[in-house]
């Protein structure tokens, strides 16, 4: 299954890549692939913006606006005037997850 691809925020600066391969390891949707010792974007459209690759990139070559792809979370954020949140916090553990 694929989702809306045109609005994705994932950006990869190949110049900065040191070929550690961490992004390939952590991505749950095989967005990255190793090619000649460097990472390349293999399937950008499959990105779900979880942010794992960016967090584990020591060279900060990856940028993505990470967040929860959850409509209820976006609504909660709107109501509370905060960032989209799925509500699973210490104060409000009645969460979806």
């Amino acid at each position: 299954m694929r989702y809306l691809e045109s609005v994705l925020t994932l950006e990869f600066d190949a110049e900065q890549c040191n070929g550690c391969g961490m992004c390939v390891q952590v991505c749950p949707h095989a967005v990255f692939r190793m090619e000649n010792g460097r990472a390349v974007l293999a399937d950008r459209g499959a990105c779900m913006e979880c942010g794992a690759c960016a967090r584990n990139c020591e060279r900060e070559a990856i940028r993505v606006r990470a967040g929860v792809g959850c409509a209820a979370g976006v609504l909660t954020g709107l109501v509370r005037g905060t960032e989209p949140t799925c509500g699973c916090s210490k104060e409000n553990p009645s969460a979806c997850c």
Partner: protein
Amino acid sequence: MDRGYWMTPTEKDGTPGAGGDCGCAPRTVPLQSFLPRTLGRIDTPWSDGVVTTEVGPVPRVRASLTSRDRIATFRVRSGIGRDNYRVAPGLYAVGNPTPASPVLVTANYKLSLDRLRGVLPGRDAWILVLDTHGINVWCAAGKGTFGTNELVRRVKAAALDRIVSHRTLIVPQLGATGVSAHLVRRLCGFRVVYGPVRAEDLPAFLDAGMQTLPEMRRVRFGLRDRVVLVPFEVLSGGRYALLAAAALLLLGGLNPHGYALAGVGTAGLVAAISVLCAFLCAAILGPMLLPLLPGRAFSVKGAALGVACVAGSLAVRGSSPAGLHNVWMHRAAWALIVPAISSFVVMTFTGCTTFTSLSGVKREMRFAVPAQVAAAAIGLCLWVIGLFLIGGRTS
């Protein structure tokens, strides 16, 4: 303290055995007080004594699941008592681990711990449970509670560097959203190796010398994965559907002359049933048929499902004796309300999936929410107007 047997005392109240109000009296209560706070608890139904280490005793958990664990899992999946499905964070043992045994990191959500220990029969390992406030690994990692700081804190608190001789932590891949491997190494000297997404692949991963196959790194979202989410989907949205149904049931009594209880049993009842059917249709069929429904936006998939449901019910009802539903205005009303409901319900399913992005969800909500609200509002107006027309005709 009244929810379930898995409830463990918080660090604050710290009373050993406070979870014993469920008839499962802790077996080894007194020993708990000798254990450092930073280690796990030994007085749970899944405890299995302690393992002695240089630093002190480490509680051991059973490396297999009992029927009791499975019943509890079903309960939590259905949304009963899920808020208290926590495990005391800290270090645990499985089997008879040595300083060379691997360290597996997980969240203090009991389903996460169950998944992990369920695949470890016959193995020796250490399990480091992070405090994620009872939330699973992926969601907690997204929040950052399953994160670099908590991991480093737990490693230090458990004196892991004195318990194991190696310097490797196996973190589930989905925890990578919150954990920075390079920062963990810098902060506590331990190297993070990301394990497979699914616990079931863990034995193969360990046997292969901590190597993941590409397939182990992919998140799946098959029919089975979607079906287990249906009970929660139904129960979490059910109360709103029931409220809406009750409101329509009462409104059904409206007529040109004021209000008559007779209408509640006819128009009101039909409306209430229609709303509940629309909700159930979306909450059950939506997740199951997800790949088959047209469009990429979930709101579009949901609307399509709703239109199909309306078409189906009109086809069935069309041949029945002229009921209230045959007033064209009510048909139009339901043709708007049902897709609006199913569109919204399926749209909220984005939060349960493994492939929707925040940007995508925001994008679809920008056009879907106004459309859903408009369709529902117009539909409701038509329905109320229809009530007056029916009332006018039958009186």
